[in-house]
């Protein structure tokens, strides 16, 4: 052991200021190229693979504790859970039967109208590994990536509604931006009256904003918002949020509408990734809905004309 190295009174090499100047220039260069161009996607993916073992190590105590917990789960609680699940299965089975018949009916109607067949979505389950450190951004990293056929832009849902969208993919992990992030916008539809709008993440407090709607718009507190499906990213009909408050400001022509996401965004571990519908299907669907809207409008106009 060499205890007697030469004492370092002075830091050898370039001065602190030179080092700082060099590295700050380097990071400014990186930031500019990362935000304006897409040069660094490959670099990011490669480095992410290198960091993968670290993530596995960090996650392992929690995986282990969960495994131990499930191993030692006692019989009583298991029986209780089986009973609960059986009850739920029964209820959902009944609902599914109704759904099957509705699906058939819908298909028949679509056939009649020569519309596109509704798409069937493939889905895979993913587990949330960790959340970003930054309270500004609402992103989570999940444990599946391109090697498990995850693609950019897939919608992420849980049992109660839409969670967000896959915004970055790496070989063994990917990044989901939650719908409360201010960078995410989702085309929605009010379930009650079919009104279409766009919901934006509010960035803070786990809420969703719906700007650009006039103050006299027909939205009530408690209305359910679902995806409209006309963007080709999110399949139609996924639950997004319920309207929580509507405020109108006399100085602004727009209402300030906030809604609360239905999915338990902060407190679940498992999410489901679903593929986006194929492009031609979406186009057909858009045409179909627009035609239907027009027909309805005409109808309502003619009825109002008749009334007087």
């Amino acid at each position, binding site marked *: 052991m060499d205890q007697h190295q030469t004492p370092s009174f002075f830091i050898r090499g370039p001065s602190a200021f030179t080092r700082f100047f060099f590295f700050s220039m380097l990071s400014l260069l990186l*930031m500019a190229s990362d935000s304006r161009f897409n040069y660094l996607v490959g670099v990011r993916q490669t480095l992410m693979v290198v960091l993968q073992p670290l993530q596995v190590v960090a996650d392992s105590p929690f995986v282990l504790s969960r495994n131990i917990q499930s191993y030692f789960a006692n019989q009583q609680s298991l029986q209780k859970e089986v009973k609960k699940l059986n009850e739920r299965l029964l209820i959902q089975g009944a609902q599914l039967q109704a759904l099957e018949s509705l699906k058939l009916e819908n298909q028949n109607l679509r056939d009649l109208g020569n519309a596109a067949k509704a798409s069937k979505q493939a889905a895979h389950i993913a587990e949330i590994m960790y*959340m970003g450190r*930054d*309270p500004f951004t609402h992103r989570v990293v999940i444990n599946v990536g391109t090697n498990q056929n995850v693609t950019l832009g897939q919608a992420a849902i849980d049992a109660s509604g839409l969670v967000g969208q896959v915004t*970055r993919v790496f070989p063994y992990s990917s990044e989901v931006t939650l719908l409360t992030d201010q960078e995410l916008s989702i085309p929605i539809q009010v379930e009650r009256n079919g009104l279409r709008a766009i919901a934006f993440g509010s960035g803070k407090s786990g809420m969703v904003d719906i700007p650009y709607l006039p103050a006299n718009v027909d939205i009530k507190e408690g209305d359910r918002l679902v995806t409209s499906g006309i963007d080709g990213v999110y399949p139609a009909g996924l639950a997004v949020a319920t309207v929580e408050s509507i405020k109108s400001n006399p100085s602004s022509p727009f209402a300030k509408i906030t809604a609360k996401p239905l999915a338990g965004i902060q407190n679940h571990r498992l999410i489901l990734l679903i593929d986006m519908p194929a492009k031609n299907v979406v186009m057909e669907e858009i045409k179909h809905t627009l035609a239907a809207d027009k027909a309805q409008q005409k109808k309502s106009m003619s009825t109002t004309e008749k009334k007087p």
Partner: protein
Amino acid sequence: MRLNSHRMVYISLLLALIFQLLPWSGVWVQIKPDFVLLVLLYWMLRAPHLCNIGTAWCAGLMIDLVNGDLFGQNALAYALTAFIAVIYQKRLILFTVLQQSGYVFLLLFINQLTLLMLKLFMDSKQFSFLYFVSCLSSILLWHLVVNARWGIANRSPDQQ
């Protein structure tokens, strides 16, 4: 194994990164101390010939990567903090333990402030004072663990 060696620096940084990667959730995300920066500051104040601005910059890049932030954001903030830490490092030996903690707190605050400004420049439009909570938890951790256990001023004999 000697305490002040490159191997120790990199092992401790790796451990800090693993701590950073633990599945934090809910309110803990905001309270979570900045483990990597604390370890960096410890080594920079104790042995600047082992861990310097370059090391801090590389560690910041790793943080950018795992957080999914813009490349270079954390790296720049870490580099600036490291620069300030290193230029006053020689004077630190005269400080008392409490003064050292104060100095480290200032550095942590500068880091958060730089990061916040970069984020506000780049994309974010929001500001919340909760952002600085991690400074407090970090300094608490520093005071409890570093000052109580391996103070930076009591140098081993192979150090000046």
